[in-house]
């Protein structure tokens, strides 16, 4: 009998075209390559310079999201795209995909959306696959029991040309979350708490497997939120073993196997879990039932605290104090009741239908506070339609929020949607780095429930008071 293996090891070994040696990294086969407008143009230029083709167009899927506007007038072409260089980048992706014969979900596509939302939604993301994209939040797809990680543009070129990457085998980290999350505590609070515990470099060089009863109880949307932010702990990837929740989500999706092929695939996918007795390089345990809503106060996602907590006092640490100075906060300060100017509900972390439903449940019949601009950006055009079918758009619009087309929007602030300098934004996105949402913007990362509660109150608010 062979030695017990982890989920990661099983997938890794299935994809070794050439195993690693002391002299050379493994040649790792890539099943699915997701492409977007920002990190691909220079890779296509390389292909052109070297006279290379895309090796497997059937394993390549492109969408536009990062620099793509979310203003309905710009998307519909009623007004020109405001950021001129972004318009050029979008055109370049169209040109590249046409020239190299790659499937593109373009501006008019009803399937377009954020790359890490549309892959799962179309059923292209599947258990056991290796999935890469020129984007660090690619670990999102690990929620399906895939090995998914972000790569740079040079590697985008490698995958386009060879469908392979040169990779050293990372270490493994098991994070077990037992118990059940309390009312008002979401997958976002869970992953923020994990990052707070292991730190923003705690996962460097490692692939995380999330496991335990609290993880198993999460919906696919929640699992994607958790895996999405693995990179914010520095991890190479994050993954969750597939189960009936995974199969139920994928069944019938356009790019998922159908008929006999589906039954065969599910049989295989059921093997994709860490064997009893499999060992990890490191293990961390967290009690899910003790978790509370979390919010960040600093300039990286590890600077996080319970929503009713106080900013830590590390006044002797100049880097910490520089971060607080940027945020306009003091040690020992409470954030509850702090006035805010922006609420952003969106991004590849928290723009799926259940995120929007949760926000709508809290906002329904209320008004967004007059001092707050609230931007609600669905993760894909399909989610937008599903939300509209449920009447969520009306709930948001009647409350005074803006309802947008899908895209990365204010998460990255390179598409026309930004937070102004000095403003506080409660944001459901993934990064609170200096300037991330706009030069001088002050980001407070939180769940959709916390964001919705804060939008109504006009200040940082505890969602448990509104549920």
């Amino acid at each position, binding site marked *: 009998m062979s030695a017990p293996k982890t989920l990661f090891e099983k997938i890794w070994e299935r994809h070794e*075209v*050439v195993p690693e040696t*002391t*002299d*050379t990294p493994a*040649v790792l*086969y890539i099943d699915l390559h997701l492409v977007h407008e*920002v*990190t691909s*143009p*220079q890779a296509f*230029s*390389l292909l052109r310079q*070297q006279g290379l083709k895309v090796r497997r167009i059937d394993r390549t899927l492109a969408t536009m999201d*990062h*620099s793509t506007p979310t203003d309905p007038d710009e998307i519909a072409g009623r007004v020109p795209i405001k*950021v001129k*260089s972004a318009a*050029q*980048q979008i055109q*370049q992706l169209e040109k590249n995909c046409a020239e190299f014969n790659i499937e593109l979900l373009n501006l008019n596509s009803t399937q377009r959306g954020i790359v890490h939302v549309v892959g799962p939604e179309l059923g292209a993301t599947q258990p056991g696959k290796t999935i890469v994209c*020129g*984007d*660090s939040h690619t670990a999102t797809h690990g929620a399906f029991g895939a090995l998914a990680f*972000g*790569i*740079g*543009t*040079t*590697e985008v*070129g*490698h995958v386009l*040309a*060879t*469908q*392979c990457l*040169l990779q*050293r085998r990372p270490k493994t980290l098991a994070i077990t979350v037992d118990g059940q999350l309390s009312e008002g505590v979401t997958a976002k609070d869970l992953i923020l708490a994990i990052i707070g515990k292991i730190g*923003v*470099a705690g996962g*460097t*060089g490692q692939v995380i497997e999330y496991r335990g009863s609290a993880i198993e109880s999460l919906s696919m949307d929640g699992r994607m939120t958790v895996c999405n932010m693995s*990179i914010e702990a*520095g991890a*190479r990837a994050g993954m969750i073993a597939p189960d009936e929740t995974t199969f139920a989500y994928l069944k019938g999706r356009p790019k998922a196997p159908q008929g006999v092929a589906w039954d065969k695939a599910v049989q295989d996918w059921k093997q994709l879990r860490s064997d009893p007795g499999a060992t990890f390089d490191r293990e961390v345990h967290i009690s899910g039932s003790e978790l509370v809503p979390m919010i960040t106060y600093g300039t*990286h996602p*590890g600077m996080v605290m319970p929503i009713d907590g106080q900013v830590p006092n590390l006044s002797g640490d*100049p*880097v910490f104090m520089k971060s607080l100075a940027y945020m306009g906060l003091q040690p020992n300060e409470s954030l509850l009741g702090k006035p805010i100017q922006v609420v952003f509900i969106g991004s590849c972390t928290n723009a799926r239908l259940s995120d929007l439903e949760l926000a709508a449940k809290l906002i329904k019949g209320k008004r967004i506070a007059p001092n707050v601009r609230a931007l609600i950006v669905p993760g894909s055009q399909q989610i937008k339609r599903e939300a509209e079918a449920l009447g969520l758009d009306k709930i948001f619009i009647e409350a005074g929020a803006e309802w947008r087309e899908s895209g990365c929007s204010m998460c*990255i*602030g*390179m598409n026309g949607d930004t937070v102004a*300098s000095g403003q506080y934004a409660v944001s459901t996105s993934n*990064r609170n*780095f*200096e*300037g*991330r949402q706009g*030069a*001088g913007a002050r980001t407070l990362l939180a769940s959709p429930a916390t964001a919705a509660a804060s939008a109504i109150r006009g200040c940082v608010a505890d969602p448990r008071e509104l549920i």
Partner: protein
Amino acid sequence: MEPIRLISSKTVVLPYTDIDTDQIIPARFLTTTTKAGLGQHAFSNWRYQADGSLNPDFILNQGTAQGCQILIAGNNFGCGSSREHAPWALLDFGFKAVISTEIADIFRSNSLKNGLLPIVIDAENHAWLMSNPGAGLTIDLQNSTLSLPNGKLVTFNIEGFARYCLLNGVDELGFLMNQLDTITQFEQARA
């Protein structure tokens, strides 16, 4: 890519931990379709004031930093996004190596592919470098050593294959292209 063997330069120190890629190059400069000219945007939010003028308090704008090819930074340099624009910007600005106690995975991988040396060293020698800005260093890639002006010779680990490629100016894509027959066999075997 040009082969890299020795880098000798004074250092410049950024005394912060967790310097993320949004600091190295903010996202608003990523709407480009080439690699050219990104150095002007390196550390843009720190280098420039709101009116576009240079921030005289920022170390990279000061005379002592001019011509420095080695950047010393706090733990977990390059965390955040996968943007290869970060090493492109640092190289275009004039840096050839970054030294820290930890360098984020994707940034390290991107740097190695572009000839920016991501060097991780022990905390003690790193602390010395952090407190001695302007120190003259020699990085010897062949021997994976760092010569400090205090006489210490510090060894560092750099992944062997990447080091071979850097020393010989070899492109990793060429290596992968030579594997195409094996890749085809792999595809046929699992079909």
